[in-house]
């Protein structure tokens, strides 16, 4: 099993009363809350953490794309990837990913990933999410009714652009291009591996299964809650008569490792509560725009990840309003009820414990969900640099060696950069 150090890059200094005084961390977060000095310091600290994870031996480092978002400071993951491409040595880079429908034309994604693949010598993994409703529909004004068609057309364009031997014309419904000619070309052939982050759309299961793409469930809510979603994907794979190769699956998980369980409970409480109560303080009205889901997903009653986060935040808010009304107070209109750290651990949102305990749970996650690519959140919330470093190092040195052999002998990871295709500057210089 591959472990990918994944960073969300949250803004770490939202005020303690943010959930009580603000409607949403996403889309309409108050611009006045952003401090450029904090931003400068934070971006550099997070790049340090990604580079440190590479040094620790993670199989890859991973990043993603969000907009107008207090918990994700990466409107452009490719800019972060560019910075990492020169500083992460031989470690692979997972951009998970570029929200294809937001690029006009999406050819820009093909070009930038090709550039990154050239710089890294063939160590890129390209993720193509539809994008959350907050990012695509609200922050970027995409029409929900046409978003998915536009997205699929964009992915088709990128794949053709990477593999075509000749200049070609692309006559799409949303992209009209007389001359398509990506220059530079990716190092990896036919192209970098493609991973698809999903939030629970049943049509995305179908698509990934039939197109032989990696399906990644980037859940906030841990492996216990994510099992149903992954089972849905694997059933589609089985229905097509294909092999349920665990490397076709990816999952994201918060981990909190310390020398002892007691220490872990002590160390990770604050950053976990910051993430789940402040970073996920999303207004429910931004979570489910009509048209974002396919009719099949509506019919199946599948709830998206951000939809769930927003629903839970709204439920807490409503409980607070009721409580405040009962007390005759106008306060707590947005919410002071918190998701407790104990609940986060109990429900599996966070895998916590000493190295042995964490290893056991990661093993359980991987085997029950059939996951060959684990996105590890060892930094979360407002975790400070030293704690992030400790957590990352402990996972890399004490957990990862115990789980890295999972599935490797039994299955081929066909969705990973192939060393035989990779280039290195030292080899080039020797020639």
């Amino acid at each position, binding site marked *: 099993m591959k472990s990918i150090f994944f960073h969300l890059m949250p803004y770490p200094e939202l005020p303690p009363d943010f959930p009580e005084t603000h409607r949403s961390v996403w889309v309409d977060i108050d611009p006045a809350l952003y401090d450029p000095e904090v931003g400068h310091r934070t971006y550099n600290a997070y790049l340090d953490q990604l580079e440190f994870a590479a040094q620790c031996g993670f199989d890859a480092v991973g990043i993603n794309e969000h907009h107008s978002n207090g918990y994700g400071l990466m409107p452009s993951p490719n800019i972060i990837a560019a910075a990492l491409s020169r500083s992460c040595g031989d470690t692979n880079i997972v951009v998970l990913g570029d929200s294809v429908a937001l690029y006009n034309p999406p050819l820009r994604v093909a070009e930038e990933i090709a550039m990154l693949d050239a710089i890294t010598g063939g160590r890129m993994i390209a993720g193509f999410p539809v994008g959350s409703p907050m990012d695509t529909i609200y922050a970027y004004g995409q029409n*929900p009714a046409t978003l998915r068609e536009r997205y699929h057309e964009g992915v088709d364009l990128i794949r053709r652009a990477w593999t075509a031997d000749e200049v070609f014309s692309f006559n799409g419904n949303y992209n009209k291009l007389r001359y398509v000619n990506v220059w530079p070309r990716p190092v990896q052939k036919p192209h970098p591996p493609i991973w698809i982050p999903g939030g629970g759309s049943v049509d995305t299961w179908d698509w990934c299964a039939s197109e032989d793409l990696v399906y990644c469930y980037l859940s906030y809510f841990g492996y216990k809650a994510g099992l149903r979603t992954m089972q849905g994907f694997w059933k589609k794979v089985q229905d097509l008569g294909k092999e349920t190769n665990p490397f076709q699956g990816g999952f994201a998980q918060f981990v909190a490792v310390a020398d002892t369980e007691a220490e872990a409970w002590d160390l990770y409480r604050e950053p976990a509560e910051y993430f789940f109560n402040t970073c996920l303080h999303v207004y429910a009205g931004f979570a489910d725009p009509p048209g974002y889901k396919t009719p099949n997903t509506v019919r199946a009653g599948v709830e998206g990840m951000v939809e769930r986060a927003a629903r839970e935040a709204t439920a807490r808010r409503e409980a607070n309003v009721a409580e405040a009304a009962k007390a005759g107070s106008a306060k707590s209109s947005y919410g002071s009820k918190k998701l407790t750290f104990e609940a986060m651990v109990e429900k599996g949102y966070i895998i916590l414990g000493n190295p042995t305990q964490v290893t056991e749970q990661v093993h359980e996650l991987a085997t029950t969900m059939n996951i060959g690519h684990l996105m590890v959140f060892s930094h979360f919330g407002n975790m400070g640099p030293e704690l992030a470093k400790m957590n990352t190092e402990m996972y890399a040195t004490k957990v990862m060696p115990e789980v890295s052999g999972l599935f490797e002998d039994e299955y081929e990871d066909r969705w990973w950069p192939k060393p035989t295709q990779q280039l290195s500057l030292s080899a080039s210089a020797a020639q």
Partner: protein
Amino acid sequence: MAQADPAAQPVSERRTVSATATAPLAGHFAPSTLPYRDGHIGVVELGEGPTIGYLHGMLGNPGVHPVLEELAASGYRVVAPSLPGFTGSSEADGLRNLHDWVVAASEVIDIAGITGAPLVASSVGAMMALEVAAVRPEAFGPMVLCAPFGLWDDDDPVADPFGTTLSVQRAMLTEDTTASAAFFEDPADLPADMVVEHGVHRYLTRTAAAQLIWPLPEWGLAARIHRVTNPVTLVHGAKDRIIPSSYLARWSAALPNVVTTHLIDDAGHQADFDQPSQIAQIAAAAFASPKASA
């Protein structure tokens, strides 16, 4: 395109598609369906007399629709087609931009047999009526338009009805939220499995409405509106929480042939749901109905 005969054959007699065979809930939303491209459109038809058309708003044509009954009681044969994607019609596949929608709406009024007839239209339906009339002046007779989308003022913006929860959206659409119950609530006698489909149809209607007005309900109509020369009666709910009532004056100034304007108390965005009797009376006066002039 040829204008329809005002005394067109009743929709029910032209029906060639079985409602139950093509869409499980079509019968709930619209008694009849007519073939349209690869699918169908739902059509509600009520009353007897001169034909008038009705183009629905964001709520589509739910099963209970008092304004249609009021218009029929005024002495008209009311024909109310559902635009693609809205309740009773098949999905809006292949409609990607406003041009696609204008062509589709133009086809729909021909199929429904209301081309050239007087028209009552609301919300997104009123916007589409104006867009069709701008390129096809003969499409409608006199029009009664309730709170059309299509204009935008940076200093007085139209509210976002989709960046909110379903319950808040409901409160934005009508002043009296019970007026939209036929759309937002499941019929008590609906079998459990059909409740799911009812929810899907509701979702698709909301999707179609969002497609027409997302992200901003302004597609350049102001530059075309001089071509809408047929008589227009403007109606606006005084408590419209989506389009400020100040837009009544903007529309009045922009349209070349406004007959009269009405600001209706105790009505929200879909005044045709909040105050169906008043809308019917205004329409009867605008169209000089047989009963109104009797």
